[in-house]
């Protein structure tokens, strides 16, 4: 999709090295939205090219398809929800990948509701209906979250629905709250025209990561240097994107006209706090301890069998030391 633009920029700035550019395919987490805009930024700003890469950006369609694309060797790199990917790896479904950088240090899954429901804390959800994308990570994580937040998950009715229907359901008060990514807050505000209350899961599940960039393991073993360069370039792009949200949004909009600029800017601003690692570690850092704890949480809540170890989902050799 973006390879045409790519050719253009190649010939403009760095014609000499164009012959050596290595072609790789990267799949975004979901379509072209704010949280994924950094890929286009890295490409447009020449970060990938500087790393010797000619990156084709493909729009993803969620965890399962993205993991499928990695498994089917249709792509070298992908972004996806790390927690969901951990669960799938834990179940032995997809194992030919390792995370190489974190996009969001914390899970973005949150309870969202409108102010008029009077729900301000997790325990208010008791006896209420929560809508969630059927089969999503947020649905899977809800019991764990509820328990930690002192709420009996059995007292909450979980209503699965198609993701695109969630905001409408909330706005129409067909449900009392949503369990979804907090990045859709702005969209929910637009839909409901009400103040939106956000209760992030990360408040109780602070060890879970949000999105991460993964690489195929055979790519890692065959060209470690390239993978490292890719991760670095992507993180450079991420940094640039959160620092210049408007520009990032414009860059993405140029490549993908359906991506609305204001929405992307809103997302980038909303995700900024989640991007920087704690303790001043470099961007993209994946803490081995936290990964281990996140696995423990998922196993402890019966979301996957025991046996997964952090090194099976993360290649820590790419993680910049803190």
């Amino acid at each position: 999709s973006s390879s045409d633009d790519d050719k253009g920029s190649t010939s403009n700035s760095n014609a000499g090295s164009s012959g050596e550019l290595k072609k790789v395919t990267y799949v975004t987490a979901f379509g072209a939205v704010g949280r994924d805009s950094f890929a286009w930024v890295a490409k447009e700003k020449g970060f990938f090219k500087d790393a010797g890469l000619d990156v084709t950006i493909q729009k993803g369609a969620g965890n399962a398809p993205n993991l499928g694309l990695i498994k089917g060797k249709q792509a070298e790199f992908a972004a996806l929800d790390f927690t969901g990917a951990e669960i799938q790896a834990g179940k032995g479904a997809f194992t030919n990948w390792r995370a190489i950088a974190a996009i969001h240090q914390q899970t973005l899954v949150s309870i969202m509701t409108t102010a008029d429901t009077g729900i301000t804390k997790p325990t208010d959800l008791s006896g209420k209906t929560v809508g969630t994308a059927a089969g999503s990570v947020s649905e899977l994580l809800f019991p764990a979250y509820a328990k930690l937040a002192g709420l009996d998950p059995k007292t909450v009715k979980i209503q699965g629905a198609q993701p695109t229907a969630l905001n409408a359901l909330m706005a129409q008060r067909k449900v009392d709250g949503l369990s979804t990514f907090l990045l859709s807050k702005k969209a929910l505000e637009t839909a409901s025209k009400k103040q939106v209350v956000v209760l992030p899961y990360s408040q109780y599940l602070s060890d879970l990561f949000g999105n991460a960039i993964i690489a195929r393991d055979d790519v890692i073993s065959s060209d470690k240097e390239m993978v490292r360069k890719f991760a670095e370039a992507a993180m450079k792009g991420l940094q640039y994107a959160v620092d210049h949200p408007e520009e990032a949004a414009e860059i993405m909009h140029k490549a993908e006209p359906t991506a609305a600029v204001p929405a992307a800017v809103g997302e980038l601003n909303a995700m900024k706090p989640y991007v920087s690692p704690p303790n001043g570690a470099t961007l993209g850092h994946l803490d081995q301890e936290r990964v281990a704890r996140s696995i423990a949480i998922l196993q402890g809540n019966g979301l996957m069998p025991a046996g997964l170890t952090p090194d099976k989902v993360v290649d820590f050799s790419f993680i910049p030391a803190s």
Partner: protein
Amino acid sequence: MTDIEAGSRGSRVWTNGVLPTLGVVITIAVWWLATEVFHIDPFYVPSPADVVDKFLEMPGFLVQESWITVQRVLIGFVIAVAGSLIIAVTLAASRTVERMAMPVLAAVNAIPKVALAPLLLVWLGFGNTPKIVMVVLVSFFPVIVSTMAGLTSTPTDLRELARSLKASWWQTFVKVRLKWALPQIFVGLKVATPLAIIGAVIGEVVSPDHGLGSVIVGSSASSDTTLAFVALVLLAVIGVVLFYLVAGVERLLVPWAKAISS
């Protein structure tokens, strides 16, 4: 191409019982072989044995969910068929109405129904209604198109006969045109049946509460491909059964159609 009809009892059992079973068995065998020979990852395509094992883990539950889906399919299908027949008759009766309505129907039909899911959910909520509406939305068009084609293909001599008897519109319709159209209507019904099933599944994926669609959603949540395949196989079984049910009704209602053609 032979003149002698294969009419004996034995050959009937052969053609209507053994051969279809054979076809299904061969398909399953090929599937099995493929998974074995090409070492297809069971995560993508589990072997038939895995699927059977999975089914036997929770047969009661799966049968119950299947039944829920079947009910939705049937209700929606009946509504769709009834509605389509009425619409088709109206369109076939008035050229003006037909010319005005047909593009709208074609347009509505070309819209991917999944995209309407949010609307359906917001307006109809959860439960059976949105699924049934989905079934209707997905399966009405083939019945309309085929019924109209059938109704407008009455041979001139039969139409003249009805006219010469001064049969009322309704009499002509029931005794001549509809009867004549039946074989073609059944083409529409046969095409609509699987669509109805898919419609129900779409509905159940959009607002998963029960049914095989929600089993598929659940299985994808837990990356349980085998369970998803169990659901798909059950849907396929439902598809075949409903298809042959429709074909059976056709045999009952239009035995003469075979006789006047070869």
